[in-house]
């Protein structure tokens, strides 16, 4: 029983972290139709900056705020000064689809190399701001702590804020319109380029939050977010790449599948499970489980 409860709780907290990365990927995909592989680099960079803030001030919370804010700035800068020029120059032919994605891969490599130069490549660690000791249930210590709970709460609040932003505000409507139909948005007078940059900024902030919440259980090194990027990407694809709800749902499905298969069958199943779930979804519902309905007929 305790094993089952532990598995459920761990699935939720793992899924929550995957969800933040999935949301970052979905936000960029929706605004620019690019899978941003540099997101792993952006998130690890903001986490290193957070790490430095902790070294200087000792405050995890200040570091979290700084990482999220700088994450937003980095996202905006990448779109404005890197992606937008690429889109302007690459206008036709098969390269249109490939060039931006390859550019994000190149950027990932550059960011990770720069991090290596600045902070070195040895493992660093960030101490969690609250206890990571597991709760005791019926005399047994389970693998779910105050910190895991904190992660869940943070992710839930982030989801709530993003949902409110997208569904209830004018900026959210501009973001949705620019994502679904940039042309109609432009013809309606919406400054789609600026809205896209905002989408990249929100994605960068989400990645920054993911990094700061993910690393306290692991080590910090230049490639530390690569695994999270893959899992976030799988979660986003499962969810249909278009919706924030889909990203979260996809991440939770992935979290449960991975934790339950590794708990009850074999710990070696971590990667196979992730990819089996992905392939099953692609075979059964290639557009993803939560792709939005477009329209009748047209």
């Amino acid at each position, binding site marked *: 029983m305790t094993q089952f409860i532990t598995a459920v709780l761990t699935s939720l907290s793992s899924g929550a972290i995957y969800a933040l990365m999935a949301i970052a990927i979905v936000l960029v995909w929706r605004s620019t139709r690019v899978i941003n592989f540099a997101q792993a680099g952006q998130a690890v960079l903001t986490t290193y900056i957070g790490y430095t803030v902790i070294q200087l001030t000792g405050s995890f919370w200040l570091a979290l705020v700084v990482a999220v804010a700088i994450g937003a700035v980095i996202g905006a800068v990448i779109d404005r000064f890197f992606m937008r020029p690429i889109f302007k120059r690459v206008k036709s032919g098969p390269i249109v689809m490939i060039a931006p994605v390859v550019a994000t891969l190149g950027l990932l490599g550059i960011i990770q190399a720069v991090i290596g130069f600045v902070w070195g490549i040895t493992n660093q660690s960030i101490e969690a701001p609250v206890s990571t000791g597991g709760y005791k249930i019926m005399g047994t210590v389970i693998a779910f702590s105050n910190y895991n709970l904190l992660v869940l709460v943070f992710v839930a609040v982030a989801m709530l804020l993003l949902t409110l932003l997208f569904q209830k505000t004018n900026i959210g409507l501009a973001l949705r319109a620019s994502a*679904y139909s940039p042309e*109609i948005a*432009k*013809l309606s*007078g*919406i400054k789609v380029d600026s809205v896209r940059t905002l989408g990249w900024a929100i994605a960068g902030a989400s990645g920054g939050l993911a990094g700061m919440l993910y690393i306290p259980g692991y080590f910090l090194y230049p490639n530390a977010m690569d695994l999270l990027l893959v899992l976030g990407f799988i979660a986003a694809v499962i969810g249909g790449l278009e919706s924030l709800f889909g990203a979260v749902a996809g991440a939770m499905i992935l979290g449960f599948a991975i934790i339950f298969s590794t708990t009850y069958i074999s710990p070696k199943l971590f990667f196979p499970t992730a990819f089996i779930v992905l392939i099953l979804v692609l075979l059964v519902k290639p557009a993803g489980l939560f792709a939005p*309905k477009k*329209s009748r*007929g047209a």
Partner: protein
Amino acid sequence: MSLIVEGLTIDHGAIRAISNVSFKVPQGQLAAVIGANGAGKTTLLRTLSGLKEASSGSVTWNGSSILAKRAEDLARSGIMHVSDGKSVIAELSVKDNLALTGLWRKDKKDVAAATKEVVELFPILGQRMSQSAGSLSGGERQMLAIGRALIARPKLLLLDEPSLGLAPLIVEQIFQTIKSLVKKMNLTVVLVEQNAMGALKIADQGIVLNLGSVVLIDSAEKLLNDPAVRSAYLGF
């Protein structure tokens, strides 16, 4: 406030889509641009609204050049382009679709008033506010697209094939609405249509395009009544 197009040439890569096209639409008038598929009608409209770059020539609206301006800036200055057929965002609700052209307008009271007017003009939209635009019929989508443009209080309306794929009765209704809007709002309209007869019936001026060039410009009435023109260019 007139639209003046002079020597406009537009290329799609190596293909010339529009060649040396000139015409003038005075304020408060409706010009119908007609011609077969591939005549360059849509390309012309996309250039007027800033979606496509011109290769040469000039376009002035209200005395200032509008070429090389961004589509969103032109939209904000009162040039509204209702693109092909049913230009609505299917994933958004009717209400959200209508809200798009009011997002950037400072005068929120007037946005509310304009929205009310649109709902009075197209009552069906009022009943479908919370539905997704994708669930609307073709005619309803066209009403939504035109309604969205009207909320911006446009001065120049560019309409691309509003009759496309609609039942004859609905086409008639849409055309009559456009005609009454021109009068009521003193709108200047460029209406691109394959439905030449329907368009010319409500237009002041007719511009016949063929393979990217203007082959005829005259009053709509004259074009409609000239048998030679009708059989050679209009197909009816």
